[in-house]
Structures are given as structure tokens and as C-alpha cells.
């Protein structure tokens, strides 16, 4: 196999418990987003658009749907003869097997994959962010700095800084301090969880970390602080585009609603790098007589007979006669039956709100209503 410049390791094994009912049956990166996409599409499309043709996807939690969705990687043009997508689940060896114990351990357990590809650089990504990034620019920055590790960072409002891993840089951009969720941040540059390592220091760091019984085997908590303590060259790469974590119900809903802005921060229609996905063969959507639609994104296979305002209808969802859907996200196959009302809600895949039923509340003080995949709500039997 020919030596590669840069490969990607995409961390897709987390449960995503903060997405509640939406990740009961599927891993977070496989959760539907933006009408026809799944969350992992954004990272995979970024890889493909950045010409990174070798991507290891580390899976662990409920991987069936995710694996089926990724398939051969052909949907992202990642079915390459020399590389492409490889699904990397935990595995057994002659001395037994172990689950991935943390982000760093997951990559450590796949050092064979990295060695097999023999890259100069390894890009580490999470599968749950919404952004468009040309990783080649970040790699150029890494190479220019002769860095051991480059962390993609972006400024966040100071009052939110304590929610993130915060990076403190000196005047040359070199990272002098990394604090995971600091109570009193001394910088507002947040780590986006996107790392480029030079392969050798990465391998050395992972091997040392694996031997440390006190480590939680986490990049943010263990690997990065250790590299800093060892005096390695860590640099920040400042990203100025749109980037959102969609890992909680609130951020998922808020980010979805932002797609509907007249000039959205993340514009799916941008003529540049397109977002690719594993498309399903659904006919065009049918908009019936008496339907009303505004400020919405509606996917193929949908049938709309009622009113849809400021909402996202994913592939194959249904809005019956006299039904109203507002400020909501319907995941694939969700059905709002005749006369039902869905407001500020997220409906899981193939979930149903019965005829005349109600889900969610327009009151912004109320939490976003969520029903899981295949759930039925709004009927007389519902609470």
C-alpha cells in the first residue's frame, strides 16, 4: 500500500445520551439531520471535499444502522481501491477483547490501521458537528508550524467558554495551555474537537497513554495536557466559518431552526462544497390542495396536506389535512395525522402523532418536546 499523506479517524462510537430518545436505537452520528442528511454526512463530506480518501470510522454504540448507512462509502465517493472508508469496531485478540474506553483508547486500539496506511499525518474528527471545513488548509497550517498537534479552534462568547475545552495561545499561535471546561477561562478560543497529529508523536502518545493506569484515555483530558507538559509543539488553527455541536436536544433543535433562516449561517444550497449523503430512492414530494408551507425545508417522499411553518420535514414524512407543524423537526417517515398539532417538537423516525393529537408547546419556557423512533403520541392513550 502506498504511503499516505493524511488519513482521518472519525470517532463515531459515542452513545450521544444527551440526544435522549433520538439515540435510543441508533448511534448519534446516524441521527437524521437537515431533512435528508445524517449527522455523519457533514464530516464524511468534508473528508471527501478535502481529498482525504482514507477514513477509519470508529464505531461502538448501536452500530448497525450507522454501518448500513455508510456501506462501502460510495455515497461520499469514498469507495476508493486504495483506502476509502473502513468501519473499525472493537475486536477480540488472543488475549481477549475490550470496549473502547475513551476517545484516545479507541484510536490506540486501531494503531494497526494507522500503521497499515502509514500516513504522515492523522486527522481526528468527531461525527457530531455541523460545519464545512477544508481540512487541507488546516493541514497546511500544521505543516508550516512543524507542529506535533494542531487543534482547530474558534472564538466563542466569553460567558459560554466554560462549556468547552479552552485553548490559550501565545502570540505565535503556539498553544501554552489547554483547560477542559475551565471555571475561569483565560481565553475564549474553544477547541472544536478536530485534531491533526503528526503520526509519530500521535503513536508515541497513545502507546504511553495506554500504559498509564490513571488515564481516562481521552484526547482532551489526557493526551493534550501530556503533550503540553512534554513540551511538544501544539498550535491552534483558527476557524472562522459556521460550526455547531448538535449533540444535545436544544442544540439539535436550535441548529435545525437556523437552517431555515433567510440567510442561514450554514447554507445547504451553497454552490461550493456540497454535502453528500446516502440518498434513498423516494419520489418528489407531493404538496396537496389546501396545503400551506413557509420557511421550511421539505424532503423527497413527503406528502403535505396541512400547514407547515418554519419546520424541517425529513424524507418520507407526512402532514395530514388540517394538521399544523410549526418550529419542529420531523425525522424520516414521521407522520402527523389529520388535525394534529406539532409545535416546537422533534419527532423520531416513523413516529406518529395521532389525528387531532397535540405534541409540544409554543411556550418558549417549555422544553422542546421529543418523541423517539416509532413512538405514537397525541392519542387518547398518551399521557
Amino acid at each position, binding site marked *: 500500500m502506498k504511503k499516505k499523506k493524511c488519513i482521518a479517524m472519525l470517532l463515531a462510537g459515542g452513545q450521544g445520551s444527551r440526544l435522549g430518545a433520538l439515540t435510543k436505537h441508533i448511534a448519534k452520528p446516524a441521527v437524521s439531520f437537515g431533512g435528508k442528511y445524517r449527522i455523519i454526512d457533514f464530516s464524511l463530506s468534508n473528508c471527501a471535499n478535502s481529498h482525504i480518501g482514507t477514513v477509519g470510522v470508529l464505531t461502538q454504540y448501536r452500530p448497525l444502522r450507522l454501518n448500513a448507512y455508510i456501506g462501502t462509502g460510495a455515497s461520499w465517493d469514498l469507495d476508493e481501491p486504495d483506502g476509502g472508508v473502513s468501519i473499525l469496531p472493537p475486536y477480540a485478540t488472543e488475549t481477549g477483547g475490550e470496549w473502547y474506553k475513551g476517545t484516545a483508547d479507541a484510536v490506540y486500539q486501531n494503531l494497526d490501521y494507522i500503521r497499515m496506511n502509514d500516513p504522515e499525518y492523522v486527522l481526528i474528527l468527531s461525527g457530531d458537528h455541523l460545519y464545512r471545513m477544508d481540512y487541507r488548509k488546516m493541514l497546511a497550517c500544521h505543516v508550516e508550524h512543524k507542529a506535533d498537534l494542531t487543534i482547530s479552534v474558534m472564538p466563542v462568547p466569553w460567558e459560554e467558554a466554560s462549556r468547552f475545552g479552552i485553548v490559550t495561545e501565545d502570540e505565535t499561535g503556539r498553544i501554552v495551555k489547554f483547560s477542559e471546561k475551565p471555571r475561569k477561562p483565560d481565553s475564549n478560543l474553544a477547541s472544536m474537537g478536530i485534531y491533526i497529529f503528526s503520526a509519530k508523536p500521535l503513536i508515541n502518545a497513545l502507546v504511553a497513554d495506554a500504559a498509564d493506569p490513571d488515564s481516562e484515555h481521552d484526547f482532551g483530558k489526557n493526551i493534550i495536557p501530556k503533550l503540553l507538559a512534554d513540551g511538544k509543539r501544539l498550535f491552534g488553527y483558527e476557524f472562522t466559518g459556521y460550526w455547531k455541536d448538535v449533540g444535545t436536544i436544544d442544540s439539535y433543535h436550535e441548529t435545525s431552526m437556523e437552517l431555515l433562516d433567510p440567510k442561514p449561517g450554514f447554507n445547504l444550497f451553497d454552490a461550493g462544497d456540497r454535502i453528500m449523503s446516502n440518498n434513498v430512492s423516494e419520489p418528489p414530494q407531493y*404538496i396537496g390542495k389546501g396545503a400551506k408551507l413557509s420557511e421550511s425545508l421539505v424532503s423527497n417522499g413527503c406528502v403535505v396536506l396541512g400547514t407547515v411553518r418554519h419546520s424541517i420535514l425529513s424524507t418520507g414524512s407526512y402532514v395530514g389535512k388540517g394538521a399544523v407543524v410549526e418550529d419542529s423537526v420531523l425525522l424520516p417517515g414521521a407522520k402527523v395525522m389529520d388535525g394534529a398539532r406539532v409545535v416546537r417538537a422533534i419527532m423520531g423516525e416513523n413516529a406518529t402523532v395521532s389525528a387531532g393529537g397535540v405534541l409540544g408547546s409554543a411556550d418558549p419556557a417549555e422544553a422542546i418536546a421529543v418523541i423517539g423512533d416509532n413512538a405514537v403520541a397525541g392519542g387518547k392513550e398518551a399521557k
Partner: protein
Amino acid sequence: MYSVVGLISTNYATEGLGVLTNERTVASLPFGGRYRLIDFPLSNMVGAGIKTVGLITPYKYRSIIDHIGSGKPWALDRKSGGLYILPGSVFGISSAESRFILRDIERNKAFLERSAADYVVVTAANTVSRIDFADLVEKHSASGADMTLVCRRAAAAEPFMDALDIRDGRVAGVRKGAEKGDAMFLDCFVVNRELMEKILEWYKAINHLDLFEVLAADYDKMDVRPYEFDGYVGPIFTTDQYYDVSMELLKPTVREELFAADRPVLTKSHDRVPVKYVEGARVSNSLIQAGSRISGTVENSIVSSEVVIEAGARVKNCIILQDCHICAGAAVENAIIDRANVIAAGAVIRGAKGDPFIFSKSSGK
């Protein structure tokens, strides 16, 4: 267990389609907002488990080859079998009305000879339907017939379709034009492969003719039977028929049959964004394909991908093909707007009911 190969003739019977087939085959005519006509026969074949399909593409084949590629969306990018693009014989010798010119098949005889298949399913691409080819081949095989032709009782006169003369359960002849109630031939049949090769041998001297022209005197020598299909059939031989059959997709019963989930219509996908409806959009009884942006009014229409309909624009009883831009205040009614056209702000385009205006494809796209 028998094996079957498919053969699709992609561009004959185009004389009634005018400017719509100026730059494309009948098979690559856009249909229903997202599809091309070829998607229906091809998906029917793949859905019936046929894994080797040849496309006869005599001319104007850029768009069909672009659409079909390696056959991946139909899972025909295979090591064994898969998709074969079969170049047609020289065009211009035969009648443009022919569907299955013998020479086209003969010149691609290797496709048949190399296959070990028992049967060949052959179809034209002018007719939209969801024929179950698996059932067709099963009935054909069980009957022991040499050839089985698919037909349907014509609900109305269809001058561009042929009719089968059926006597005692056998096909005794094929004649031009189908009257109401006739067994209308759906340009689709199954034949034993070895017989097909023999027919090519017998009629070498007159192979510029259509298969059914040369067979005219042979129905007493062969066992040719009808297979009656009773589902939806949309024949597309003229621009009026193209318009009418397209509009039938607005009926839920037609959509439910053609797009039933157990045997989906497969097509090339393009990573289109969901449709964006802007404040002020008004849409009623229409099919809208992904990638479009709607701010204006759309009524009783079919809108393909990447179409922009600006605020204040009105589209009624129209088929708008891919990449069109209907500017603010324009009014388009009873029209087919072919690909990549810009309808200027305030422009009015109005066809007559039953005689749609056709705005031909913008050049260069």
C-alpha cells in the same frame, strides 16, 4: 431455475416528441420531477432480479450515458453480468417508428451469445408502467411458449401503440394502432434466447426492419402468446402524451402504484438539498423535486430539481424541468419549460389547455 437478461431499446418512436427529443433519447426524457423514462423499465428489470441488462443506444446518447453511467444506482455495476451499452446500427435506413430494429440486436449478438440466459426480456422505453417482469417470465416459462408479448386492454384509442390479434389464446398478428378495448401491445416481450438468435439468423437479409414487421408471416409457425397486464400504463409518443401522463402523477392512485415501496423506482441521485419554501410561497396539488427553492405560487404542476420560483411568480398546470429560473412576477401556464431556461421577470407564457406551450431546452446545458 432459469436465468434472464434484459434488453432495452432507448430511442425509437420519437417523431411525435418534437423538441423534447432534439438532444436526448426517449429513454432519457425527464419524467415526474426526478426520473428519466428509462428508470421505469430498468427498475422493473432489476426489481425482477435481472442482473444483466443491455441498452441499445443508436444516437443522441450523451444524456442517456450520463444518466446511466456504470449502472450503479440500479446495482448493475457488477463483476458478473451488469450493464452493457450496446451501440445501435447505422441510423437512417429504417423507419423512425420502429421499436426493435433487428440489426441493432444483431450487431450486438455477442451480448446474447455470451450470456447463458434462457430468456431475454425486451422492452422499449416509451411507456411508463410497473410491469412485474418476474411474473411475466414465470408465466412464459410455465407455458412453454416461444415468445410472450405484454399487452393491456386499451382504455382509449392509442394511435401510436400496436394491437395484438389474439386467437385461441395465441398471438396471430400485430397491427398498427390500438382501438379502445384492443389488446394494446406494450412494446415489451420475453423470448427464448436461442430462438432470438435464430430469428437474427433467419432474417439477416432484411435486418433493417423491425422485429415485429419480419415476424408478420411467422405467427403460425411459432408459439406466441399474450400476457395481459392490468396496471397503470402511460404511453409517451407525443408531447401531448408527455404532458398528460406527467400530470397523471398528481393522482394519488397513480403515484401509489408507480412508486410502491416494495419495488422502488431507482434513479441516479445527485445529493440535492431538500426543497426550501420561503415565506409567501403558495403551493397546491404539485410535485416538487429536491433542490428547488419556492417563493412564488405553484399550482397543478411538476417541478424538477434545482428550479427557482421567485416571489410573485405564478406557475400553473406546468412541467418545469431541471435548472429553470422563473423570475419575479412571471406567469407561466399550460406549458412545458425544458431544462435550464430563465423566464424573465414579468414575462407571460401561456399555452392552451390541452395544447401545452413548449419552451425548448436552453442550449449549452
